[in-house]
């Protein structure tokens, strides 16, 4: 009998403890700082880094296997997502050892890492893409930056206005959320501050945006080159100012609509962090970048 009555009390105690544990969570992290590497930021980069971290941990298991000079502690690498802005901020305030950033840094941002490192792993390239059923693929596969700007700003509203041989149907402009990394890239390379048309559909993920282009013959959108390459006959990339988004043009820098994939740290990495950085920049790391659909930096 007594036990039965004690049960709710016990339950309450456990619940209260869980509540308290939740409050104290913030402090536990700091004591682990020396034994684990924490990486956080851009949602574009996090799958790449997470995959590399998995491979790295799987291959070496303990740090002394990576380099005999390191202690025989297990390798622990945390990767968390929260956007490029979050990555920058958290790297600076020390929440993470490395911030993942998928955008061009301005001079002010670069200055914060003058003492530390900025490592580029690759580029995320945005292809201006349409559905294969869209006659523009044959009629006008090359747009100027100015035409693109006018389309995305909503100044050119129908395909016919773009070229008289195209159908008199509305252009469906599909973009990622305004303010996100991809929008920023497109703004810098094409829009130059012109607001995106208020009629543009904002699509919650790059995968869904690619899906929209595949499903809808009247859509034009900017799609990650990786997704375009994975769906060769379903999404057709257009050239911009006569330059097609080919690997050569991207690496040479002639194709402008792209952003770098960066890891940043405000201080010099210690031996373990350096070992992981080296792994990321090795053949294995860059292959992951390529497999995920991005263009790796020249090996």
């Amino acid at each position, binding site marked *: 009998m007594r036990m039965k*009555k004690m049960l*709710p*009390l016990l339950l*309450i*105690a456990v*619940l*209260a403890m869980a*509540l308290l544990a939740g409050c104290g969570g913030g402090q536990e992290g700091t004591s682990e700082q020396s034994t684990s590497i924490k990486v956080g930021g851009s*949602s574009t980069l996090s799958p790449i880094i997470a995959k590399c971290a998995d491979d790295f941990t799987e291959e070496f298991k303990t740090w002394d296997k990576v380099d005999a000079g390191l202690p025989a502690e297990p390798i622990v690498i945390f990767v968390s997502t*929260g*956007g*490029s*802005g*979050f990555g*920058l*901020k958290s790297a600076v305030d020390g929440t993470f050892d490395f911030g993942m950033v998928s955008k061009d840094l301005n001079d002010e941002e670069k200055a914060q890492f003058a003492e530390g490192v900025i490592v580029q792993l690759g580029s995320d390239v945005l292809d201006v893409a349409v559905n294969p059923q869209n006659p523009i693929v044959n009629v006008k596969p090359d747009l100027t930056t100015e035409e693109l700007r006018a389309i995305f700003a909503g100044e050119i509203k129908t395909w016919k206005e773009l070229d008289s041989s195209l159908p008199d*149907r*509305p*252009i*469906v402009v599909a973009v990622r*959320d*305004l*303010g*996100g*990394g991809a*929008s*920023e890239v497109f703004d810098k390379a094409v829009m130059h*501050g012109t*607001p995106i048309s*208020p*009629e*543009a*559909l*904002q*699509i*919650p993920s790059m995968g*869904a945006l690619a899906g*929209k282009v595949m*499903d*809808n013959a*009247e*859509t034009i959108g900017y799609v990650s080159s990786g997704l375009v390459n994975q769906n060769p006959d379903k999404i057709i990339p257009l050239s911009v100012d006569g330059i097609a988004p080919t690997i050569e043009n991207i690496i040479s820098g002639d194709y402008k609509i792209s952003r770098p994939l960066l890891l940043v740290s405000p201080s010099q990495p210690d031996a373990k962090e350096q070992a992981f950085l080296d792994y990321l920049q090795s053949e294995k790391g860059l292959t992951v970048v390529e497999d995920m659909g991005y263009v790796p930096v020249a090996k």
Partner: protein
Amino acid sequence: MKSKREKPFIAGVTTIAVLSSLLLLGMVFFMFRESLPIWSDIGVFQFLTGTTWRPVAAEPIMGIAAMLVSTLWVALGALVIAAPIGFGCAIFMAEFAPRSLAAVIRPVLNMLTGIPSVVYGFLGAAVLVKYFEATFDLASGESLFAASLVLAIMILPFIIANSEAALRAVAPQIRYAGLSLGVSRQYYTVHILVPMARKGMIGALVLGLGRAMGETMAVLMLAGNTLLLPISWFSKGEPLSALIALEIGSATPGTAHYQALFAAGLVLVVLVITVNLMMNTILAGLKR
């Protein structure tokens, strides 16, 4: 009799109950604090009635009128679709359904509530959007209507369950009195049962409205997320919940953009709380 052993138990549950309520207050306070610069710099009126949303432009302009209208339009639209179906279903279940049929329908309806909203959104995006494009020859099929339609399905189980409960709460004496006067079951249902249960049924609607306003995933995938002020049910729009879900990931903490999203969240929370208070008032009126 209160034994000595009960006292710590009562103290314990009281503490937990108070803490849970404080959680809500704390959340509203936190959102208010995070969004304070918006209210003081832009102004409540300007923020709520502005129709331009350019949070990351060189000179940011932030007004959420288009999103506010989208939220209300989508939620009220869902209610318009769900109310007749929900009430009809509830009346059938409470009054006309054979016991065996009700035993099948009720668990199925309850199960509908457990389906993750992302699944609804995904199905809507895959089926509804394409259907609208093909049937109405639209350039793109996303619309507030599509979002309302899916939301209606999502809130139906709540409306049905709560209306049915209200109908069943009508005292059996009234039923016997009514039927003994020789009225038909149809007359009894329409003129006696439903009017007696009407407050509870309105409460069910209001509960559905609250849920519809806060729902995020399905509207995010179906409403189209354009920044234009919607002018019809078939316009595209971006409800508040979709706005926050889309942009919070890329907003840098501490910027006006981030604060504005918190302000939008606060507006949504206040809307939903208002709706819930309305429901409590209705239910309190019912008990009296």
